């Protein structure tokens, strides 16, 4: 048995029965990282010494019987979640040497649960991208095909889970940044309902869309990580005081009575890769075999989602990123001799091209004379997109669709063509605009052996139904058990 290949729930069972120790588990994961990191490039920072200290502490709790489901479990954290005393870069030169003076709420929760943090995962700079090519430090490679992107922006997290360089991971999703890399790397990824997980200590990109969520090897692990990170937090004024269920209670067999909506706009005649199309149609049949009823529904404003998103997200980003001014933390240009010049040179040397491009779009769209035409209009169409979902959920319990129109594309293919890159987010953006939860699970492989993901979207705070459907799909398939050859 290879310890690094274990799921969280299986490892927990072995730890509890004292068949393995947390130290052995962490050592196995560190050895795996040592063996494949040069090929994959999933991590920006590794903390082997700290991880071993945490693993020894976990073994002590295990010996005393005071352990939880994450005690001694090695995890990777996307490098935009603040980890006290451990460098947090956002994959940006501007935060290259930033050591957070505090822990994000999710980190406090994971630490209290005894988890072991092995490292900080690579990503697109400030989570802006769909390929992890926009990291200021290095691209991450897809463990299934090293010449391809792992997806993004949580590409390092997804690749680390897929390549067994951790047992699970936290990412963040602003327009698909957990679900799309999960699909491209054949792992499970969930974007929870907006407000479900505290954003305190998450470096802000677009505050009305950002949400932290898990990437995991299977649905059970996803539910366990959700249990660990969800919940109201007074430090995040947009966090919602909604009771959090034990998500593992939804993992029961049988889909009888479940109604699944298939948005017809999400299975377009053109633009969808034939292998993706086939995998999704197979998945629909599988869900029907499992007892679910599938009905066609319509989300008529789908075709405007990309345009709405690429106004709202850059607008919010341009405001959020104004704080990187070289004064309180982060990079500063030391050659400038007045304040304005210092700001300008600091930002342009500190931010990469994609980040600057989005700041330009956002600043332009919010500037005098353009606000109503861009931000105002986009926020109105956002309302119509939300209404589409509201109407759909009157007829069904969840929605099923592809995650991305194609399998992972080759590194470098569209990295300098922003609009084409943006259009690849078409199926995932709407969930963020509407604040609803979305889940990506493995549902097949292309003829070239690249993973394909299935997206499930549900009502606000109804992650449980998504997990139930995913769990049943998993029981009937073995896509999630297949491993990349590295």
């Amino acid at each position, binding site marked *: 048995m290879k310890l690094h290949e274990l799921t969280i729930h299986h490892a927990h069972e072995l730890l509890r029965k004292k068949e393995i120790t947390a130290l052995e588990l962490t050592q196995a994961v560190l050895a795996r990282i040592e063996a494949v990191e040069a090929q994959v490039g999933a991590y920006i920072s590794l903390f082997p010494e700290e991880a071993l200290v945490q693993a020894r502490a976990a073994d002590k709790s295990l010996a005393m019987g005071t352990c939880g489901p994450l005690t001694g479990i090695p995890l990777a954290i996307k490098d935009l979640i603040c980890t006290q005393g451990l460098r947090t870069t956002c994959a940006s030169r501007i935060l290259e*040497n930033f050591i957070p*003076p*505090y822990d994000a709420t999710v980190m406090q929760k994971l630490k209290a649960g005894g988890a072991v943090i092995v490292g900080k995962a690579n990503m697109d700079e400030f989570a802006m991208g769909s390929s992890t090519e926009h990291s200021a430090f290095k691209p991450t490679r897809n463990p299934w095909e090293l010449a391809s992107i792992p997806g993004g922006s949580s590409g390092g997290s997804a690749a680390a889970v897929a390549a067994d360089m951790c047992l699970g991971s936290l990412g963040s999703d602003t327009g698909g940044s957990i679900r799309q890399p999960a699909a491209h790397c054949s792992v499970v990824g969930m974007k929870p*309902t*907006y407000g479900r997980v505290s954003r305190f200590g998450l470096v802000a990109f677009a505050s*009305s869309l950002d949400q932290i969520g898990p990437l995991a090897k299977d649905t059970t692990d996803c539910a366990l990580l959700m249990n660990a990170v969800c919940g109201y937090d*007074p430090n995040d004024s*947009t966090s*919602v005081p909604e009771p959090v269920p034990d998500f593992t209670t939804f993992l029961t067999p049988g889909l009888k009575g479940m109604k699944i909506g298939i948005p017809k706009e999400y299975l377009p005649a053109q633009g969808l890769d034939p292998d993706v199309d086939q995998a999704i149609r197979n998945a629909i049949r599988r869900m029907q075999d499992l007892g679910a009823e599938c009905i066609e529904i319509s989300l008529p*404003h789908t*075709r*405007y989602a990309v*345009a*709405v998103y*690429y*106004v709202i997200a850059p607008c919010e980003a341009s405001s959020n990123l*104004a704080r990187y*001014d*070289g*004064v*309180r*933390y*982060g*990079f*500063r240009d030391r050659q400038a*001799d*007045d*304040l*304005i*010049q*210092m*700001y*300008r*040179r600091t*930002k*342009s040397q500190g*931010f990469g*091209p994609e980040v*600057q*491009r989005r*700041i*330009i*779009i956002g*600043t*332009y769209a919010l*500037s005098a004379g353009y606000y109503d035409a*861009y931000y*105002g*209009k*986009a926020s*109105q*169409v*956002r*309302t*119509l997109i939300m209404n589409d979902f509201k109407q759909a959920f009157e007829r069904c319990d969840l929605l099923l669709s592809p995650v991305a129109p194609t399998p992972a594309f080759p590194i470098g293919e569209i990295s300098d063509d*922003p*609009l084409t890159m943006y259009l690849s987010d078409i199926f995932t953006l709407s969930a963020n*605009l*509407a604040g609803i939860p979305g889940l990506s699970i493995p549902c097949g492989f292309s003829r070239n052996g690249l993973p394909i993901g299935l997206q499930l979207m549900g009502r*606000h705070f109804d992650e449980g139904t998504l997990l139930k459907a995913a769990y049943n799909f998993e029981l009937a398939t073995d896509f999630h058990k297949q491993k990349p050859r590295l």
Partner: protein
Amino acid sequence: MKIKKSEVEHVAHLARLDISEALLEKFALQVGKILEYIDTLNEVNTDGIAGTSHAIFLTNAFREDNIKEHMQRDLALANAPEKEAGAFVVPKVVG
């Protein structure tokens, strides 16, 4: 062209960015293409539709104004590019 190089330059100044000539040219082209695409929103009739800035219904998050522990000054200054006497140092602002 949807946006001129000079407009990108103006917006860059508003955003406190210092973008090279070559990049300004490229950004004008790319941002222009993106803005043209965004114009498809004009096909949608939004008369009388209220805008959404937040997808979840929430009322204001008020709390009691109690004094709590806050971050110690040394810690708050720990990442400062330049500091002196317990304060952040910036280039001279007034002449």
